[in-house]
C-alpha cells in the first residue's frame, strides 16, 4: 500500500508542478484566476437564488430533498463527463504511461497513481459548485451541526463512485479497443465519446423530462426524489442521508454511501489489476500497411501546390487525434448540438417557427442572425491553431520553395472549410426544421460566408503573430494559451459596432437594403483583412523560430 501511496504522490507532483512552466504561463493563470472571481461570485449568487426559490417551492410538501437530488444528479453527470477525458489521457495517452510499465509495480498501483490527478481535479468543480450548494441548502433549511458534518462527508464521497465507474468502463473499453492495437484510433474514439455523452445526456434528459416540469410533478407525484434520481442511486442515497441527518434512517444511508464508495474503490483496484495493462501494452501509434505497386499509381498525380498544401493541413487535423477532437469535432459540436435540440423541439415552439420570421422586421431578423453567426463562427479552433499545429515541423515550410502566401492561404482555407461545414449543417436545420423563408436564409448565408472568412483570417493572424511551436504534446497548442479569446474579443467589438450603427440608421430599412449595406461593409473588411494578412506574413513568416 505504501508503494501505491508514494506513486500517487509522485504523479500528483509531476502533473501539477508549476516549476517547469514559463512565467508567461503563470501570469496567464493568475490573470485567468482574477477574471474568474466576478464569475465565481455571479455563479454563487445565482446558485443561492436558485436554491432559495426551489426551497420555497418544495418545502411546503416536504419534498425539499429533491433540491439535493437535482444537485447530486447534475454533479454526477458532470463527474462522469469530466472523468472520461481526464482518465483516458492520464491512463492511456500520457507520454509517460509506457515508462511506468517496466517498473516493479502492480498494475493496480500504477492505475491508482494515474487516477490520482484526474480524481483530485474533480474536487475543483466540487469546491466551486457542490460545496456552496450544500452550504446554501443548509442555511435555507436551518440545519444543525450534524447536517454540516454529514454534508462534508457526502461532499467527499460523491465523486468516488462516478469516477470509479467511469474509469472501470474506460478500462473495459480500452481492453477491447486495443484489439486493433491502434493508439491513434482509440484517441479518436475517445474524443467522440465525450461528444456522444453530451448529446446522449441531452436526449435522455429531454425524453425523461418531456414537457412536464418540476412544479407540475411536485403536485401529483409522491416519490419525487426517487423520480428525479431514477438513474443515479448515489444521488438518491446521499440526498436521503442529508434530508434527515439526525434520524437513524439518515445515518444508515450515510453508512451505506460510505460502504458503497469503499466497495467502488476496491472494485477499481481489482479491475485495474486485471485490465489496466491489457489496455496499455501494445498501444503503439500508427498502423502499418503493406505497400503494393498499384498504390504508387494512385498517388503520383500532379496537383496544384495550393491543393497539396490544403490536403496536408486537412490530413494533419484528421490524423492527429488531439487535433481531430479539438478542431474538427469541437467546431462541429455546436451546430450538431443545435440540431439535436431543434429536432427534439420539432413539435415545440421552434419547429416550423420560420414562417413567423417573415412577418417580423426584416432589418431586425437579418441583424440578429448576423449576430448569431459572429458568435458561432467567431472562435474557430482551426484558425487559432493554424501555425501552431505544425509545431517542430514548421521549419519545413521555410527551406522548400513554397511562397509564404500559399502556405498561409492553405491554412486559411482549412479553417474556412470547417466553418463552411457548420454553416451547411445549420442551413439544413434552418431550412428543413425551422422552415426559415428562403430569402432570409439566402441573405444570412451570404453574409455568414463573409463573416466566416473574416473570423478565420482573424484567428490565423493571431496565431501567426505568436504561435506556439515548441510543443511536445499537441494539447499544448490549446492549453494555457489565451489566444482563442483574442479574435473573439476583436470580432465582438468590430461586428458589435457595425450592427449597432446599422440598427440606428433609420433610413436603412428592410431585409435587402440592410443585407446590401452589410455586404459592402463586410467585403471591405475582407479586403482589409487580406491586406493586413499580407503585411503580417511578410513580417512574421520567417521570424517564428
Amino acid at each position, binding site marked *: 500500500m505504501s508503494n501505491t501511496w508514494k506513486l500517487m504522490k509522485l504523479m500528483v507532483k509531476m502533473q501539477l508542478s508549476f516549476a517547469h512552466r514559463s512565467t508567461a504561463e503563470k501570469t496567464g493563470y493568475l490573470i485567468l484566476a482574477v477574471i474568474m472571481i466576478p464569475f465565481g461570485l455571479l455563479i454563487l449568487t445565482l446558485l443561492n437564488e436558485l436554491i432559495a426559490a426551489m426551497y420555497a417551492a418544495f418545502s411546503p410538501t416536504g419534498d425539499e430533498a429533491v433540491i439535493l437530488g437535482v444537485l447530486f444528479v447534475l454533479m454526477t453527470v458532470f463527474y462522469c463527463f469530466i472523468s472520461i477525458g481526464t482518465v483516458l489521457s492520464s491512463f492511456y495517452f500520457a507520454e509517460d504511461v509506457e515508462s511506468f510499465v517496466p517498473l516493479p509495480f502492480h498494475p493496480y498501483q500504477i492505475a491508482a497513481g494515474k487516477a490520482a490527478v484526474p480524481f483530485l481535479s474533480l474536487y475543483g468543480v466540487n469546491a466551486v459548485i457542490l460545496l456552496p450548494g450544500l452550504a446554501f441548502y443548509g442555511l435555507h433549511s436551518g440545519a444543525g451541526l450534524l447536517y454540516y458534518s454529514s454534508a462534508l462527508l457526502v461532499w467527499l464521497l460523491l465523486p468516488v463512485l462516478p469516477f470509479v465507474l467511469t474509469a472501470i468502463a474506460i478500462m473495459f473499453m480500452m481492453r477491447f479497443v486495443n484489439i486493433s492495437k491502434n493508439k491513434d484510433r482509440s484517441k479518436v474514439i475517445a474524443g467522440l465519446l465525450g461528444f456522444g455523452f453530451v448529446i446522449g445526456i441531452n436526449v435522455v434528459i429531454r425524453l425523461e423530462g418531456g414537457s412536464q416540469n418540476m412544479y407540475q410533478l411536485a403536485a401529483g407525484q409522491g416519490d419525487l426524489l426517487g423520480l428525479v434520481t431514477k438513474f443515479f442511486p448515489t444521488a438518491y442515497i446521499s440526498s436521503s442521508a442529508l434530508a434527515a441527518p439526525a434520524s437513524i434512517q439518515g445515518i444508515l444511508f450515510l453508512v451505506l454511501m460510505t460502504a458503497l464508495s469503499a466497495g467502488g474503490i476496491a472494485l477499481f483496484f481489482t479491475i485495474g489489476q486485471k485490465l489496466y495493462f491489457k489496455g496499455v501494452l501494445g498501444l503503439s501509434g500508427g498502423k502499418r500497411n*503493406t*505497400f503494393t505497386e498499384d498504390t504508387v499509381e494512385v*498517388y503520383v498525380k500532379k496537383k496544384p501546390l495550393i*491543393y497539396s498544401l490544403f490536403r496536408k493541413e486537412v490530413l494533419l487535423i484528421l490524423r492527429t487525434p488531439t487535433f481531430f477532437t479539438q478542431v474538427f469535432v469541437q467546431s462541429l459540436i455546436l451546430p450538431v448540438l443545435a440540431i439535436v435540440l431543434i429536432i427534439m423541439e420539432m413539435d415545440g415552439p421552434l419547429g416550423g417557427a420560420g414562417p413567423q420570421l417573415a412577418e417580423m422586421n426584416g432589418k431586425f431578423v437579418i441583424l440578429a442572425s448576423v449576430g448569431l453567426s459572429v458568435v458561432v463562427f467567431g472562435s474557430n479552433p482551426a484558425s487559432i491553431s493554424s501555425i501552431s499545429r505544425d509545431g517542430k515541423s514548421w521549419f519545413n515550410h521555410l527551406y*522548400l*520553395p513554397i511562397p509564404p502566401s500559399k502556405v498561409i492561404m492553405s491554412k486559411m482555407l482549412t479553417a474556412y472549410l470547417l466553418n463552411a461545414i457548420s454553416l451547411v449543417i445549420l442551413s439544413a436545420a434552418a431550412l428543413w426544421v425551422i422552415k426559415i423563408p428562403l430569402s432570409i436564409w439566402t441573405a444570412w448565408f451570404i453574409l455568414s460566408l463573409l463573416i466566416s472568412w473574416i473570423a478565420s483570417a482573424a484567428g490565423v493572424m493571431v496565431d501567426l503573430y505568436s504561435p506556439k511551436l515548441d510543443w511536445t504534446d499537441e494539447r499544448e497548442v490549446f492549453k494555457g494559451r489565451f489566444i482563442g479569446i483574442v479574435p473573439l474579443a476583436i470580432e465582438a467589438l468590430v461586428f458589435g459596432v457595425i450592427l449597432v450603427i446599422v440598427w440606428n440608421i433609420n433610413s436603412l430599412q428592410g431585409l435587402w437594403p440592410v443585407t446590401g449595406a452589410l455586404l459592402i461593409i463586410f467585403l471591405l473588411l475582407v479586403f482589409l483583412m487580406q491586406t493586413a494578412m499580407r503585411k503580417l506574413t511578410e513580417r512574421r513568416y520567417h*521570424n517564428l523560430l
Partner: protein
Amino acid sequence: MIEIKQATKNFAGKAAVKDLNLTVPDGKIFGFLGPNGAGKSTTIKMMTGILPLDAGSISMNGVDISTDPMKAKHQFGYVPDRSDIFLRLKGMEYLNFIGDVFDVPPNVRKEKIEYLTKSFDIYEALNDQIHTYSHGMRQKIVVSGVLLHDPDVWILDEPLTGLDPKSSYTLKEMMREHAAKGKTVFFSTHVLEVVEQLCDEVAIINKGHVQFRGSMKEMKQQFQEDNNLEKLFLELTQNE
C-alpha cells in the same frame, strides 16, 4: 556553387556564427566539420532560408537566398539534422508533396520513387505515416525527396548520423556520383573519420568561426603544425 559572405547570426545577443566566409565549389564533396555547438546547423539554416541572416549574404548558384528566396530554394535540396518532417503524412504522400512543390512530372515521380525507396529499403513503409518511422527511415525518406527533384546543390546536415551501414554506404555513393556529375555536395559532420573517407575539401568550424579551409592533405598538415587545431582534432576524434 555556394558563396557565403560575412554571414552572422546572433541568438539572444550571443553570436552563434560570426563573419563566416566560405565558397563551396562545384564538382566536389565539401565537408563542414566541427564539434557540437560549433555553429554548423546555424550556418546551414541560414543557407537554406530557415533563419534570416543578421548580416552578410549567401548565394546558391549566384542566386541570393535573402533577396530571391523562391529561385534560390529551387537550386538546392536539404536534408535537415532533425527528423521532424511532416510526420502525419504517409511516406508516399510526402514524396508526392515534394513532387508537387518542385513540379516533378508524374512519370518521373513514379519511376524515381520506386527506384529510390527500394534502394533505401523503405518501399514497404511508404503507406505508413512518417511518425511511425525510425530516425534512419525518416532520414531516408527526406533523402529520397531530395533526389526526387534532383537539385544541383545538396545540403546535408549530419546526414550519416543514425543510418545503418548499408544505407550509409548507399548515401555516400550517391554523394560521390552527384559530385562526379559536376554538381555541389555540402554536408556537415562532427566525425573526422567521415570527412577523411568522403571529402575532397573541408572547412573546420569552431565557436562560430571557420578555423581552417582546404584540401584533405592540407588539413592533415595543419593539424600537426597548428596548436589550436590539434586540440580541436583531439576533440573531434576522441569523442566518437
